[in-house]
Structure formats: structure tokens, C-alpha cells
């Protein structure tokens, strides 16, 4: 891990055996990535990424803008093909050639751009590609199921029969999350799921992440909100400029995390907080 070892204290580097937040060991590895790289022309968005997610484990993926988090998620969702590296799902090597391959394995994704069809209504979006009764759509059952999912998320959506284009940003995000839960997945990828959500809805999503974790699902969550990350993550994986840059406990210090994310202990975040502390002691 170039660029970080010198600045990181010993105890916050990679742990070889995975344990949950409560200390219990992780039984089964759902997904493991080895040496994943992705080039977009001359840009290498990802270089040699290693990552493991166990069943019943929440892994938070953090990093600055452009660190490659969404690119990694898209590779796992089958949207992009990796340029190099192997992906093993539940012990077997797999090629995620297209999104339906990932969905078939039980990898559900909430994309950063949500990937909703604006011209379809909420129910149609939630069930897109997985409609009940393909030859004679069962609209009543689908609508009922959609309401149940949305109510679990305490969604504030007035009607599920309006086009998704007419929903607010947070409502759209809730629809995308509800969609990922529809088919019992084994692994959920959440790319900034709470970025647009209100206080109550964020809490619901965090609760939900814990609930699916307790059901034995693997969860990868991307977030820029360290409080949310600490609240639910068993491990925090840091990406920086497309490379692994350390793995942390949920209780790692802010200073260490930010140092790993920005790549230096002397960074704009620590300078800011330093200034504030100085200001407080003065007054």
C-alpha cells in the first residue's frame, strides 16, 4: 500500500481475520476480489484492488471524490468488466459479464445515479426486469409489495402510481433502495444510499443495513458521512486514487481515517479542525 504506511499507526492496518463489530467471527466469505484493475483509456480508475466481504458483514468503502468507489461497485454489479483481476463469489470464480449475471448471483445494487426509468411509475421501477406474471402483469400484487417495501423504509412517497420523474431526490433514492431489496439478494451494494435522505429515512436505511446484515447478507456501503459509516460498518476499507489504502475498525480515530483517505496527516480537514480548536481555546 504505497503512500500510507508511513503515516498510519500500527494497530489500524489490515486485520487478517475478519470479525464483526461485536467481535464474533465471520463464517463465510461471500465475495472476494483479487487484484481488480480497471482502465478507462489512459486513466487507471482502479489498480490491484483486494477486498473480502463475509456473510453478515457490513463493509464501508470510503475515499475521496474520484477514488474509484463507484467504479468498483459497477464492476461488482456487472456494469463494467474489470481490466484485470479475479472475482470469487461464495468460493467460486465468476465473470460478471453483464448486470443480469450479477443479479442472477444475488448481487443487488443501488447505483449512485440510481438508474431509474423516469417515464415509468414507482411500482414499474421497483419490479423492472422482475415483473410478476410476465404474460399478464399482476399489477395489484406488485403494487402491494411495493407499498410494503416502501413502508419498511418509512418512505414518504404519496403515490406509487406517479412517474419517478416527479419524485424528489430522496424519494427517488428510496425507490432505488426498495428495488434492491425486492429479490432476496446475498450481497447488497449501496453507493451513497443516504446522500439525499432526510434524518428519519437515513436512520431507517441504517437500521435496514443492520437488519439485512443480521439476516446473513453481505453489505458494501459507500458513504462520505463518517458518522453513518461508523454506526453500521464492521470494517472500513479506504480507497485512494484507485488503490487500497488501508482497512480500519469502526472505532478507528478520525485522524487516522482522514489521513488514509486524503493520503497525508497534514491535510485540509485536520488543518480546519486544528484552527477551530485553536479558536475555541482562545475565546
Amino acid at each position: 500500500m504505497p503512500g500510507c504506511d508511513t503515516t498510519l499507526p500500527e494497530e489500524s492496518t489490515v486485520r487478517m481475520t475478519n470479525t464483526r463489530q461485536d467481535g464474533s467471527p465471520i463464517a463465510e466469505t461471500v465475495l472476494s476480489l483479487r487484484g481488480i484493475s480497471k482502465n478507462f483509456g489512459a486513466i487507471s480508475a482502479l489498480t490491484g484492488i483486494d477486498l473480502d466481504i463475509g456473510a453478515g458483514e457490513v463493509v464501508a468503502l470510503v475515499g475521496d471524490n474520484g477514488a474509484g468507489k463507484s467504479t468498483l461497485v459497477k464492476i461488482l454489479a456487472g456494469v463494467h468488466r474489470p481490466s484485470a483481476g479475479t472475482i470469487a463469489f461464495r468460493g467460486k470464480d465468476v465473470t460478471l459479464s453483464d448486470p443480469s449475471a450479477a443479479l442472477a448471483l444475488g448481487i443487488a445494487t443501488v447505483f449512485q445515479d440510481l438508474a431509474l426509468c423516469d417515464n415509468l411509475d414507482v411500482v414499474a421501477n421497483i419490479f423492472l426486469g422482475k415483473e410478476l406474471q410476465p404474460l399478464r402483469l399482476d399489477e395489484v400484487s406488485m403494487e402491494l409489495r411495493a407499498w410494503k417495501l416502501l413502508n419498511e423504509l418509512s418512505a414518504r412517497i404519496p403515490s406509487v402510481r406517479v412517474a419517478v420523474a416527479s419524485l424528489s431526490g430522496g424519494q427517488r433514492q428510496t425507490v432505488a433502495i426498495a428495488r434492491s431489496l425486492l429479490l432476496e439478494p446475498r450481497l447488497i451494494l449501496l453507493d451513497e444510499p443516504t446522500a439525499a435522505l432526510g434524518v428519519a429515512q437515513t436512520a431507517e436505511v441504517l437500521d435496514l443495513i443492520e437488519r439485512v446484515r443480521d439476516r446473513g447478507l453481505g453489505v458494501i456501503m459507500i458513504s462520505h458521512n463518517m458518522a453513518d459509516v461508523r454506526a453500521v460498518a464492521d470494517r472500513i476499507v479506504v480507497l485512494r486514487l484507485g488503490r487500497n489504502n488501508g482497512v480500519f475498525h469502526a472505532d478507528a480515530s478520525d485522524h487516522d481515517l482522514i489521513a488514509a483517505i486524503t493520503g497525508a496527516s497534514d491535510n485540509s480537514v485536520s488543518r480546519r479542525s486544528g484552527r477551530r480548536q485553536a479558536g475555541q481555546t482562545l475565546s
Partner: protein
Amino acid sequence: MTTGDTGAPLLDRGDERVKQQDSVGGSIRAFLGRVRTGDLGSLPVVVGLAMIWTVFQSLNPVFLATNNLVNLLFDCSTVGVISLGIVCILMVGEIDLSVGSVSGFASAMVGVLWVNLGWPVWLAIPAAMAVGAAIGLLYALLLNRLGMPSFVSTLAGLLAVLGMQLYILGASGSINLPYGSDMVNFGQSLFIPHILAYVFAALAGAAMFAAGVRTAARRRQAGLSAQSMKSLLLRTGALTLLLEAIVSYLNQDRGIPWMFGFFVGLTVAMNYALTRTQWGRSMTAIGGNREAARRAGIDVNLIYTSAFVACSVLAAIGGVLSSARLASASQQAGTGDVNLNAIAAAVIGGTSLFGGRGSAYSALLGIIVIQSIASGLTLLDLSSSLRYMITGAVLAIAVIVDSLARRSRVSHGRA
């Protein structure tokens, strides 16, 4: 707050911001609201049709005479079927500019196979449809494999297929289909028996009512809001009356051509496929947001293929119908304004050129508008030069309405 039979609040009426729209007045208010925000549906075409009919009727009282209307229905059926295919292809946000040529080629194939080579007609027609399917498959391959825009591939197809049509027709250039054969009768003189036409109209109304009652019952049972019996009765009753009135008016003359009945049947089937099946949902999704559809696990290439094949096969069927109507397969079949009329009909009827929005019924309504204009102008003895200009202007207006409605939808958050 509305409550269900059990007294518990309805699942979809829990939010106090939702206005209730289950009653008759509510449905009307909801409709007006949709129109205002740019969700026009088939409103412009119905208004336009009323205007066109008023103008032509005042210029020439023969226009709305039953005889003229029955002829109009014959003319609608041929291009209308082609237009149904255009609805399919516009739905996924692509275009097929070669439907005219494909229809002409199909009619030439039937002429050559049936009359010249002596094949039975029931074999010649499927052969023409199969060739149509192959052409659609080719467009789909060019798009899926090579990324060739359908605009270009079908423009090339327009010329190539026309060339094939001229080639197989050979030097004579025209083949007469035998008068008195079933196929020509179907295209010229077969009418739905008067009683049967009334029965069909009544059955359509009854089926709609039964389906409505069933859905409402299921929704109530599930704790969802449902349309009230009164508004359901009112709606299907009004529609049945309208259908019966049309039937009784046309029955004063020869009645409704079987060919038009066939077209309406295809339209209803297409409407079902587009709105009530997974295939139709996938088509709409791809037209709305191709990448989102792909990420939802939809096989985008397969759906594109199905859309192109459906479009070309329907074009071939339309070509066969028009050769039956004219009792001939000629070099002129499918040329001239057939292509543009078919596309214009779909757009005039309210199917968006931008993809993801449209309905099978837009082909039906749109082709009636176009043929009304053609028939009205012919009755006025205007030259075809004027007819082209006016049809062109109507198409331009339809596209403007489509673009403006789209803008309005975007600004009202209903893309």
C-alpha cells in the same frame, strides 16, 4: 382519510397529500391535471380529428357520408397495420424508415409466389412475413453488433429493399391478383355481418367492464384504493354507446370491413402486449432510459431485436393487405407517401419520437386523421401536390406538439 371496508386506512391513501381521484369528478380533475402538465395522451389527436371533420364536412357534405367513411376504413387498415409496427420501434427510441419498401416487397413477393409461381396463398403470405422478419433481424444485428444507428441502416434498407421489389417484379412491373379470390375479397368486399358488429361492440364494452370490476375487487381486497362502481359503469357505458353508435351509422351502408376489424384486433393485441406484459414494460423502460433498463437485468439487445422484427413483420402484413386492397402487386406499392404516412400516423396519434412513451391506439387514431385529410382533399378535387403539403404540415404540427409536451413534462417533473 379514506378507509376500506374493514375501516383500516387504504394503503395507497395514507398520505394526506394525495387527492382522491376514485370518483367521477375526481377522474375528470385528474385528467385535466395531466393535460396541463404535458401528459397529453390522445387528446390533441381527438381535438384535431374533430376539427378536420368539421372543416371537410362543411366544404363537402359527402365527406361524412357512410359510403365515404367505409372506404376510409379500408384505406386506414393497410397503412394502419404498418403504423402499429412504427409504434413498436418508436417505443424503444429507434426508427424504421424502410417500412414502405418492406411492405411493397412483401406485396411483390405474394404476387410472384402466388400468381407467377403457383404457390398456395396461405404459404405465400407467411413467406412474405418471414422475409419481413429477416429484414428486421438484420437491422437489429447491425444495431446490436455494429452499433449502426437505425436511422442509417433503415435508410439504406429503404433503397435496397425497393431494389429487391423491382427486381422480383421483373420487366412486367405489375402482377394482378385474381379477382374473386379470398384474399382480394378480404381487401375489397368482405364486411362484418351487421348483427355481429353490434355484438362485437357490446362484447368489447362488457369485457372492459368485467375486467374493471375484477381489478377493483382485487384492489379492494388488497387494501388499495379502487375505482368506484359508478365511475366504472359510466366510463364503460359511454364507451359502449359510442361504439354502438359508430357501428349503427356504418351499418347503414355496407358495414365495417373485416380488414378494419383485423386492424382493430391487432391494435388491441398490441396494446395488451405493450401495457400488460413484461415485454411491453421492457420496451417502455428501454425507450425511457436504456442504461437503467440494462442495469435492471433486461436483455436490451433481445428487446431491440423483437422491436425491429415486429416492425418489419407488421410492415409486411400491411403490404399484403394493401395488395389485396388494390388486387395487384406493382412497382408503385409501398412507395410514395406510405412510409411517411405510417410514421406520421404514430406520431400524430401521440407516440413520442423520443422513445418510451406511446400507445398502440395512437396508430389507429393517427391513421384515421391522415386518411381523413387524404380523403377530404380528394373529394375537393385537390391535386396530390397539395395533399402532400397539407399532410406534411400536419406531421410538423404533431411533432411540435410532441416536443412542446415533452418540454412541459420535463418542467413539471413528468419526463
